[in-house]
Structures are given as C-alpha cells and as structure tokens.
C-alpha cells in the first residue's frame, strides 16, 4: 500500500521531528525534555518513514543496524559512568567541562549518558518496529 500523501508529508515531517528530537535531548537538562523523550521522537520519525517507504528503506536510511545503535547507546552510558571510575571517584559521578559550549550549554558526562539513553531508545524502538514491519 502506497500513500502519496504520507510520503510527501514524511519528507517535511521527518527532518523536523529529528531536529526536534535532538533539541529535546540537548535542552533536557534545564527544560522539559531529555534523552528518553528525544529518543521516542526520533523513533516516531523513523516509524513515519517506515510506514511511508517500507522498513527496508528505513534500514538503509539509518545506515547502522538498530542493534548496533543499541550497543552504541549502552557503551556511551557506560563510558559516561566510567569517566568517574577512571578519575578515582564512584561510578557515574558527574564530571563537567569547565566552560559552557555556545548553543548547548554546560557539557559533561550526564549529557553523554543522556545521549546513551537516546540511542538505546531509538535503537530498541526502531528494532521492534522494523522487525514487526518486515514481511
């Protein structure tokens, strides 16, 4: 089943949704948002794409296997925690860069951890979506 309306809409909606998801991820520390919501938004974007163009096309667009994205997310979260352990403190203690980056704000291991959450959520949701959608 091909829906031209959906395909056309996806072309505009997807970039917006993905941008919004990154925006949500980055602002999460101070305003409503965060890795979990951002990840769900991105997953929704990919779900749109999969509905419009089929799971195979989405897999090509993603470039990476969703399982690799999950692994990368878990690794990012582990690394974020490991920084503190390497510095001699308790696992997962936050460490911050001394200066704030323009447009992003304070950068530190919690942000990396949130990126990990984001990737795990995106990876898991797209993995389930694409596996279910395959025929």
């Amino acid at each position: 089943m091909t829906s031209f309306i959906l395909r056309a809409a996806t072309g505009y909606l997807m970039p917006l949704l993905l941008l919004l998801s990154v925006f949500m991820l980055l602002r999460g520390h101070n305003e409503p948002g965060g890795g979990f919501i951002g990840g769900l938004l991105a997953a929704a974007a990919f779900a749109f794409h999969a509905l419009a163009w089929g799971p195979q096309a989405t897999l090509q667009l993603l470039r990476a296997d969703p399982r690799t994205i999950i692994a990368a997310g878990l690794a990012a979260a582990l690394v974020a925690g490991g920084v503190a352990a390497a510095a001699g403190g308790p696992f997962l203690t936050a460490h911050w860069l001394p200066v704030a980056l323009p447009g992003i704000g304070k950068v530190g291991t919690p942000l990396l951890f949130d990126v990990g959450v984001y990737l795990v959520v995106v990876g898991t949701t797209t993995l389930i979506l694409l596996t279910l959608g395959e025929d």
Partner: protein
Amino acid sequence: MNRVPDGGAGRPGKRSMLSAMIAGLVVAAVLAPLAERRLGLWAAPVLAAIPAAFAAVVLMNLPRGGGVALAEVRPWVSELGAELAFSLDGLAAVMALLVAGIGALILVYAGAYMAGKPTRGRLLAYLLAFLAAMLGLVLADNVVTLFVFWEATSVVSFLLIGFDHHKGESRAAAVQALLVTGAGGLAMLAGLILAGLAAGDLGLPVTQAWRISAWAAVDLRQHPHYFPMLLLILAGAATKSAQWPFHFWLPGAMAAPTPVSALLHSATMVKAGVFLLARLSPHLGGTSEWGWLVTSAGVVTMLVGASMALGQRDLKRILAYTTVSVLGTLTMLLGVGTELAVKSAVVLLVAHALYKAALFLVAGNVDHGTGTRDITALGGLARHLPWTFTAAVLAALSMAGAPPMFGFVGKELLYTSKLDLEALGAKLVVAAVLANVALVAAAGMVAVKPFLFRRRELSHPPHEASPFMLLGPLLLGLAGLFVGLVPATFDRTLGPAMAAAILGREVEMKLKLWHGLSVEALTVLVLSTVTVGGGVGLFLLLRRRMATARRLLELASRVGPTRAFNAGLAALPTAADRLSRLVQIPSLGRSLSVIIAATLSVAAPSLILLGLPSLPAGLAQVQLHEVALAVLILAGAVMAVVFPKRLAAVVALGLSGLGIALLFALFSAPDLAMTQIMVESLTVILLALLFAHLPPSPERSSHAERLGHALLAGGAGVVMALFVLAVMPGSFPPSTSEYYLAESFPAAHGRNVVNVILVDFRALDTLGEITVVALAGLGVWALLRLRPDNDRGGEP
C-alpha cells in the same frame, strides 16, 4: 610464623610491583591479537617476555625462610574487609616462578604450534589472560582477592578448553570443567566466608579478618564452624585439583590444544587446589578431620588416576590420568602434614610441574609431526624426532623417578616421609609404591613406546618440530636433570621457603641423591628399585596386552562418576522443561489473570488491615475540565473493551492514553506528558504493524469467561485506586524532593529536576533501565526472527 605484612614498606618503588605485573599481563592479553597480526611468528616470543620478566622479578625478590619478600594491599570495599592484597612468601614464590616460567616457555611453543592458523592471536590472548589470573591467585593474601582470581582461572580455562568451539566434544568438555570447578568454587567461597567470619569472631578486626596471613594470630580450628568450613573449602580444592570423585573433568579437558594442556593441566591450574590446601594448612590443618579427609581423598585419587592411565591409547589422556594420580599424591602428603611429608610435597610439586609440562609438549610435537597421538599407531620415531625424543627421555626419567633426576629425589623423599609415620605408614607406602609402578609404566608408554620399537606406517612421513617447539620441552627436561644433580639450587633457596610457608615455621631442607647406608636409606633405595623394576615389567607386559587392560578399565568406568555427571546433566533440561510447563500457562491472557489474581490476593487483605482510606479533602474544588478529562479516559477504556474490531479498540485505548497525558500536563509534569504522548503514538503504530501478523478477526471468549475477566479487572482497578488514595495524604517525607529541588542546579548544573534525577542523581537506576529496554528489544527481535518456521534469518 614471622610474616611481615608490609614487607615492601622500606622500598616504596616495589610496593605496587605485584599488581603492576599482573595488570601488565592483562594488557598484554588484550594486545596479543594485534601483536600477532603485526609480528606473526615473533609475536609469541615477544609476548613471552612479560611472564619471563615476572619470573625474573620473583627471582630477584626471593623470600628467605618463612618471610615475605613483597607485599601489597590496595583497599577495595574496606567496610567488608575486601581488598586487593598480594604477598610473596615462599609458597607464592615457587608457584609464581612455575606459572610465569613455564608460561613463558609455553607461549613461545604455542606461537609455533599454531603457525598458520587464524586463531593464533586468540590463543595467545587467552594464555596471557590465564597467566594473569593464575599469578593473581597464587599471590593473593585476601580471601576476596583469592576467590576472584580463582574464579577467573575457571572462566579462562573454560575458554581455553573450548578453544576449538566448532567441535561438540570441546564444548562439552569445557562445560563439564566449568560446571565442576565452578560448583566447587562456590562451595569454597562459602567456606572462605565462614573462615573470615570465624576469624572476626575470634577477635580479629575487620581489616584483618579477611587477610589469610593474619589468621596466624587466631586459631580457626577452635571455632565451632571449623568442620563445615573445612568441608566447603576442601570441596573447592578437590574439584579444582581433580580429586576423586571429581577427577573426570581433567581427562575430558584434553580436548584443549596441547599447549593449553601443558600449561593448565600439568603445572598450573590443577595445582590450584593443592596450592589452596598448602596455603591454608597452617590455619586449618593438623586436626584429625583434616588428616582423614585430605589423606583419604588423596590416596584414592592417586590409585584411581594411576590405574586409569594404563588403559589409555591417547598420549594426552595417559598424561592427564598420571596428573590426576600425582595430584592425589600431593593431596595425600598435605593431608599427612608432617615436616617430611610437606617437604616431599614441595619437591614432588616442582618436579612434576617440570616433567609433566615437558611431556605434554612432547606429545604436542609427536601429534604435530605425525598427525596422531594414538600410541598403538606410533613407533620408531626416535630417528625422525631426535630432539623431541631427548626431551621425552629426560622428562620421563624424572617422572619414573630414576636417578639422577629431580623426580628421583622427590620419590625417595616421598617414601621416607611415609616410613616416618607409625601404623598408617606401611599402608601408605604400599599405595604409593603401587601408584608409582603405574607411573613408571605410563612414562614408558609416553616416552618409549612411540619412539622405539617397530616403525608404524603413517599417512605422511613424520617430521621434527621447529626450534621454538623444542625449546620448551628441552629446557624443562634439562631443568629436572640440573636440579637433581645440584640439589643445592633448590634445597637452599626455594624449597625451604615454600615448606616454611606451608608448615608455618622455619625448616631446613637437605636433598641428596645418595643417602648413605643407614637401614632407612637402604629401605627407601630398595623401594625405589622395586618401583622402577616393577614399572618396567608392567610396561613390557602392557605393550603386548594393551587391549585386555583397556577392556578391564572400560568395565570399571561404567560405574564411574562421569556417568553420574552426564546423567545429571541430561536430566537437568528435562526437569526444567517439566517445571516450566507446570508453572507457565501457554496463554498470555491466562498468565496475566494468574498474576493479577495473585497480586490482588496479597494486596486486598493488607488494604483491609490498614483500614480503608477516606476520600481526600478538596474534592469539591475539582474543575470542570478535569472532570471532562476523567470522562474521556474512562470512555476510552470502556470503548476498548466493547469495540469488536482490533484497530478500533487500539484507537480507543489511545484516547485513554491521551487523556492521561493531558492530566500530566495539567498537573505540571510536562516530561511525563510528552513521554506519554510519544509512547501512545508509537504503541498505535506497533500494534497496527502487529495486526498484520494476526488472524483477521479475534476470537471472542465465552460470556462466562468475559464475566470472570471483568470481575478480575474491576477488582484490580478498585484495589489499585484505593492504594493510591491510601498512600496519597502526605506520607512521603518532604526531605527527599526538597533535597533534589535544592541540589539540582548547584550540584548538577540542571534546572529540570526530572532529567537531573534520571541522568545524574539516580543514573545507576537509569543505566539498569536502559539495559532492560535494550534486552527487551533484542528479545522481541529474537522471538520474531528466530522462529522455527521462519527462514529469514538465524538458525532454524
């Protein structure tokens, strides 16, 4: 014993040397595959420099007498007494020298043995990791350190035994070894914890109670838990050191590549149990329980191993069973525990490590040069493999206990130590002579039978091994000869230091090839001669009557513990299957009903006990739009139940979800609201996709069933609502949320408290949650992709 726990204190540079060396081996293990790709054949000798350096460090810091040369303590979980504590006393020094020295030679050997195979880098990595674990184990001075490294050796040996993982036989042997040693390790952990608690009971502070060397200050044998503690620890030692009836995993482990067997199953890992007995004998030994249990396990193992060795055709299996026999002898000697017995255990342990590693490498060379390890197919190889034959003869002479080898000194001492005992002595001497006769015959089968006598037809002409593969066996064989000729290299240095560490007091040691003409010395000499003569006779007899011997042993092994183990292993999945059929109903709806009903049956009575909650105050101020939202949510739920079409039901459920999201937004929880909306949207898409896989129209349940479901669901809703009401009125301490609100920005640089809690304050929880999310995703993927009727991916 005069141990100095901070022996390295005067030399600060040496204080962290031991842990640095172990860490170096771990790093080398990680880098080994890379090094192998870059350096090829030379990777192994280069990597071998690291354990060789370890051995050199031990040699330069040899402990004198019962003292400690190097010690190191790093705090870990101080409140529980867990620390990384290493100490280099006589026992640790000898074991570390054997492990690191033989390990270095075997690395060199393994590099050449695996030449041209793509798995060489992996083998070198595992071997180095094993050396790190084993050295950590022998140097450990804390119960927790000891256990961690003990388990590490089990895990790495699992990888090594199952190295050829495409072969079912290797996988089965690896699992068997892991299960047996792992179960023993758990028992040992329980025993060690009992010992640590007992040491605390007897007055040691928590910083000392878990340190093995500190146990010298108390007498654990006085503690009421002494016997269970001893039994549990012995279980660990017996499984690791392949004592009867746990001996069967060791011959199975011969599925490993030969360099692995040479390292793990001769010199190092199987000695870990004996090492544990030696390490703990000053604190737990000397009682009649210790004497009986340890000695009898040792004697039985010694005899079983020696007799089983004679029925084997595979070179490596012969060696494996003789190893079982020697491990039994060592255990027996530690069980006897007199000064002479301990000294003879020390000599035998070192002599055995040298000759057995050499013989395994010889077996590897024979296998490599001819393509078979079956002794009935081998003969007359001496001409083709002259250097391998030389090494074989040197090692086999030591194994047979012939003068002037180190093994001869060991056996003389063994007999002397038995004659030293009163009533028991004679029986033990007879047992030891019998076992040693079998060992002599086995030495002949390994080192004489394949090399001399008539040449057999082989599929291709045999060839001598490369120099890298001759270095190890020749050096090890020569070492046995050298120490036998110049015993002062051992009995002035390592020997007494190790014996002192085991006995817990200073001792002198004097090893001789010739003991003079006293009655005792002559008796021992006669016994030695009888042993060698009997062994040679048995070997000549066996060479003709191999088949008969094998048939007899096959009959005997039908009732052995291997069968019990295999039967148990086969029964386990069957029992698990039955159990899951019993408790797991193959219908999601019914399973859910059981779970909900069980929850209700616990929750409802407690609600009644607590007293029914009253309605919250301020109900009158409910706004109209709030009532509207509640109606929306309820209407969605009712429609979801009533609608006959699946898609319509899902959309109705989405209505409920959206209502809840709006409620979150109204009560200032924007994060929750956004998440709820996203989850609702994605759920609709997921369910819509799922419907493609389901039959077109759902089967309706009967009216009675639907009534039951309605009652259950209604009950769950009512109880849940009452619970929420019961916990609502200010039962949370305000301090928690106040703390988060106050600390969020100053301590965590974030104004969104929800997110700060997720990624900073309670990040460990989140880490656990995302792991669960990831596993759930993988689980869905596996269930959908790897169905038996699905040929799209994975195995059938």
